[in-house]
C-alpha cells in the first residue's frame, strides 16, 4: 500500500489495540553518485530508499518498530507494542501535538539540474584538472560527484504534522602524489551550496597532497598548536555527546550541572544553529520548533541540549534538539554547530602562532578520543611553523591532551570558517597554548 494508507492503518490499528498515541516518522531518500578513476567509471550508484518508523505510546511507555516494506501494518504495531511492554525506565516521553513552524525554504544545490551524463562529465573533468595541476600528482583515488534528495514526514495521532525536504550535493577529489619513492594521498571536498567550486577543490586537493610529500615527524615534546579550520571542526565532532542532556543525565558528560560556569577561554563561542544555510530545518526529530542558541558564550557554558524527554526530567523546556532516524528511537544531538568567528585570516593566525605546529588533519579520530574524560591522543599531520612561516610538512605524530583543558587554553579564534565533512560543524582556525606531541 502507499505510505499514506499504511500510516492511516497503523494509526487505526494502534488505537484498536489500546495504544494511547501513535507516531510515524517516514524518510525517503534518492541518491546518485559517480566516481571516476583514470578516466574510467569506477563506481556508479543510484539509490531509492524508504523507511517508516512507528512509535507507540502504550501504558505510558514508548515502543518502536521500523520497516522498509509497507505491507503488514498489524505486525508492525504489535512489534512496537511488544517493545513498549519491556521498557523499565520510568522516564516519561510524551508525544507533541500540532505545532507551528517558521517557513524554511529547502536548500538549493548547484548540481540539482545536472543529468547523470553531466555529472559523469564533471567528475572526469575534475580528475583531469587535478592531474594537470602538478606534475607530482600521478593519479587519483577517485573523483566523485554525488547528489541526494531526502524527504522527512512526522505525523501522530495528537495532530502533529511536520514535513520537510533537503537537497545535498558533494564533489570529492582524492589525489596521489609521488616523488623520490615517497607516495602520499590527500583529499578535499565541497558540499551543498559550494558543490560547484571545482576550481577551489582542485587547487586545495593538489596543494595539500603535494605538500605532504616532504612530511616527517617532529621531536617528541610540548608545542604551541594552530588547529587549521577544517581540522578544528573535525576535532570537535567526536565530543558532541558532552553537550547532550541525555548523556549528562546518564553520568556520561562532565558538563552535567555546569551551566553558568566558565569552561572555555573568553574568545570561544559555540552556536547550535538549526537555520544554518547548509541544512536549515524548522523542527527537530520529534516535531519541536527549533531555534538558534549559544551552547558556550564567551567561554561560559550556557545550556545542555534537550529533547522533550530529557527536558521533562530536568524540569526545563526542550531546546529543539531531538534527533531521529527511521531505525532508532528519538535521541538528542546538535543541529548544525558553528564556532563563532574571531579575527584574522589563516596567515595572520600562523603569525599569532609564531613558532609551533599547524595541524591540518587527523587520522582515525574516533579511535583516540575518550569523550567522557575528554582525554585524547590522536594521529595528526600538518606543518612545522617558525616565526609565523611554514617550514616543512609534518606527519606520523600524535597530539595528546584533554578537551576541557584545551578549551581553556585557546588563545585566539580566526575568521576563516570552514565546514567539515564530519559534522555538520563549522569552525575557524583555533590557536591553542600547548599540546603534548609524540614523534621522533
Amino acid at each position, binding site marked *: 500500500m502507499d505510505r499514506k494508507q499504511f500510516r492511516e492503518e497503523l494509526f487505526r490499528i494502534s488505537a484498536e489495540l489500546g495504544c494511547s498515541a501513535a507516531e510515524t516518522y517516514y524518510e525517503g531518500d534518492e541518491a546518485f553518485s559517480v566516481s571516476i578513476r583514470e578516466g574510467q567509471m569506477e563506481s556508479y550508484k543510484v539509490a531509492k*530508499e524508504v523507511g517508516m518508523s512507528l512509535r507507540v505510546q502504550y501504558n505510558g511507555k514508548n515502543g518502536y*518498530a521500523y520497516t522498509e*516494506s509497507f505491507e503488514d501494518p498489524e505486525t508492525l504495531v504489535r512489534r512496537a507494542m511488544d517493545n513498549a511492554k519491556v521498557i523499565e525506565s520510568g522516564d516519561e516521553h510524551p508525544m507533541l501535538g500540532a505545532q507551528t513552524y517558521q517557513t524554511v525554504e529547502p536548500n538549493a544545490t548547484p548540481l540539482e539540474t545536472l543529468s547523470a551524463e553531466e555529472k559523469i562529465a564533471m567528475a572526469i573533468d575534475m580528475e583531469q584538472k587535478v592531474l594537470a595541476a602538478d606534475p607530482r600528482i600521478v593519479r587519483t583515488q577517485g573523483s566523485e560527484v554525488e547528489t541526494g534528495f531526502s524527504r522527512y514526514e512526522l505525523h501522530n495521532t495528537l495532530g502533529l504534522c511536520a514535513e520537510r525536504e533537503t537537497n545535498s550535493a558533494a564533489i570529492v577529489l582524492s589525489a596521489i602524489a609521488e616523488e623520490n619513492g615517497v607516495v602520499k594521498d590527500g583529499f578535499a571536498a565541497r558540499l551543498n551550496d559550494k558543490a560547484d567550486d571545482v576550481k577551489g577543490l582542485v587547487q586545495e586537493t593538489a596543494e595539500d597532497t603535494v605538500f605532504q610529500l616532504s612530511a616527517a615527524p617532529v621531536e617528541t615534546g610540548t608545542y604551541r598548536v594552530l588547529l587549521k579550520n577544517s581540522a578544528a571542526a573535525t576535532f570537535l565532532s567526536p565530543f558532541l555527546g558532552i553537550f547532550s542532556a541525555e548523556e549528562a543525565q546518564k*553520568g556520561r558528560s562532565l558538563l552535567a550541572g555546569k551551566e553558568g560556569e566558565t569552561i572555555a577561554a573568553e574568545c570561544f563561542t559555540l552556536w547550535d544553529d538549526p537555520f544554518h544555510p547548509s541544512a536549515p530545518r524548522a523542527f527537530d526529530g520529534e516535531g519541536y520548533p527549533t531555534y538558534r542558541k549559544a551552547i558556550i558564550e564567551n567561554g561560559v557554558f550556557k545550556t545542555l541540549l534537550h529533547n522533550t524527554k530529557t527536558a521533562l526530567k530536568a524540569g526545563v523546556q526542550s531546546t529543539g534538539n531531538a534527533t531521529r532516524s527511521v531505525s532508532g528511537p528519538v535521541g538528542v544531538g546538535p543541529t548544525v554547530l558553528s564556532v563563532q568567528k574571531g579575527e584574522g585570516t589563516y596567515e595572520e593566525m600562523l603569525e599569532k602562532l609564531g613558532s609551533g605546529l599547524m595541524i591540518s588533519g587527523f587520522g*582515525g579520530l574516533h579511535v*583516540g578520543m575518550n569523550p567522557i574524560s575528554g582525554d*585524547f591522543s590522536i594521529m595528526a599531520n600538518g606543518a612545522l611553523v617558525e616565526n609565523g612561516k611554514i617550514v616543512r610538512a609534518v606527519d*606520523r605524530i*600524535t597530539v595528546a591532551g584533554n578537551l576541557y583543558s584545551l578549551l581553556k587554553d585557546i588563545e585566539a579564534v580566526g575568521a576563516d570558517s570552514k565546514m567539515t565533512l564530519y559534522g555538520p560543524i563549522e569552525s575557524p582556525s583555533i590557536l591553542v597554548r600547548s599540546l603534548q606531541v*609524540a614523534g621522533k
Partner: protein
Amino acid sequence: MISEQSVNRILDAASQTGADFAELFEEDCERNSLVMAGGAIEQSVSSHRHGAGVRVMRGEQSAYAYSADTSEEALIETAKAAAAALKSEPMQHKLQYMKKRYTTPQEIRFDSIANDTRVQLMHRGYAAGKAVSEKIRQMTVNYFDQVQRVLICNTEGVWAEDERPRTRIMFAAVASDGTNAERGSESPGCCRGFEAYSKAIDVEASARKAAERAVLLLSAKDCPGGNMPVVISGGFGGVIFHEACGHSLEATSVGPGNSEFCGKLNTQIAAPCVSAMDDGTIPFEWGTINIDDEGTPGQRNLLIENGILKSYLIDRLGSRRLHLPMTGSSRRQDYTYAPTSRMTNTFICPGKDDPDEMIRTMGTGLYAASLGGGSVNPLTGEFNFAVGEGYWVQDGKIVCPVRGAMLIGKGAEILQRIDRVGPSMWMAQGMCGSLSGSVPTNVGQPVIRVGSITVGGKGGAM
C-alpha cells in the same frame, strides 16, 4: 523471495547496455535491539530491512542501483538505472542456475523467544558488572539479534540463498572516583541463535571485565609518549594486524595499485615469525560466512606464511583487476552497498615464544593488555590504534597501569619489527567500516612483541 522468472527478466534488463555480468542481491533482515541504562530497559526497537540491489559489470567498470521496493517492476527499473552507466550493445546471457541453499544451525531461533528473555539476560550482565565496585557509576548494556536472509543470483549461474543469524551483547562501564571518569567495554558476539548465551558467551564474565577495566584506569597514570618496544596481548590485540596489514591486502586497495603491498606476492613482507590467516569458515564465529555477498563459499585464506605474502583478499571486481581468483571475501553491510573485498576472521597464527620472557627482556616500554579501535590509510600504510588497558614496563617489570596511549606507525615497517609471537591465539569481535559499509569481523593473535613503535600519550617521564 523473488521468483526465477522475475530474476531472469531483471538480469536481462540489466544486460541491455553491454553488461558482461549482472547480479541481483535481495535481502530481508529482522532485527531486535535493546538498550539498558541504570539497570532499566530504556529502548527497545524492532526493525525490518527489505530491499534489493542490481549490479552490472563490463570489464573493470561496475555500477550499482538499489531499491527498497522489490516488486519485479521496481527491480527492472533498478536494473535499468544501473545499466544506464554502460553504453554498449545488449548482451545475451544464458540464464541457468546451480541452486544452493545455505543456513547456519540455530537451536533457539530469535523469533521463538519473547523480549523478556532478552531482558533477563541483560539484567544478569548488568548486575554482575555493577557488583564489581561501587565506583561503577554507569553500566550500559546494548543487545541485538538479527537474522538476515539473502538471495544472490547472477548471469554466471549462481543462485544462492543464505540465512545468517547473528547476536551480540555490549557492556560499557563508566567508573568514577569523584574527579576522574574512565570507561571500559566488552562486546562478545557470534553467528548463531539465542543458544549463544549458554554455549559461547558468558555475559557475567564479560560485564565484569568491562567494569574492572574502567575501575583499573582510574588509578592509571597518563602514558608517556615516544618510541619504545610494545608487547601486545592476544584477542583484540589482533586489531594491529587488521589495520597494519589486513586492509592493505584487500583488492579494493591492491587492485588500483593503492596499497603498500602491491606486487609483493611471494616476497618477505613480515618478520619470519609471522604467519597470518583470514578464515571465514570457523563455525559460529562473529566474522564467519557460509557464502560471501557474491555467493562464493567462505574460505580459509593463508595470507602470510613465515613472513612471506601468499594471498590477497579478492572479490569479483578485484579478480578482474588483479587477474587472480576470488577468495570468498566479498562482503557488504546490506543491500544499500555494492559488495567489495573485506576481511572475515583475521588473525596472526600461533608461534613459539614465551609471553613472560617477552616482557622480562623488553627493557622499558608498554604492555598493551587490551586495544580499542583503529584505522589505516592503505596507500601509505599509516595506521593508528588506541590502547584501552595498558601497563608501563620498566626494566622488564610491570610498574603501573597507564591510560591514553595511542600506537601509530606504518604497516610494512611494523610487520618487520615483530620479534616475538606467543603460543596460543584467541580472537575478539569488532565492526569493520570500509567502502561497503560496516561488517562484523573477528580480529585475533597470540601475545606478540613489536621491537619499536611510536606511542602517543600526554604523560611525562615515569
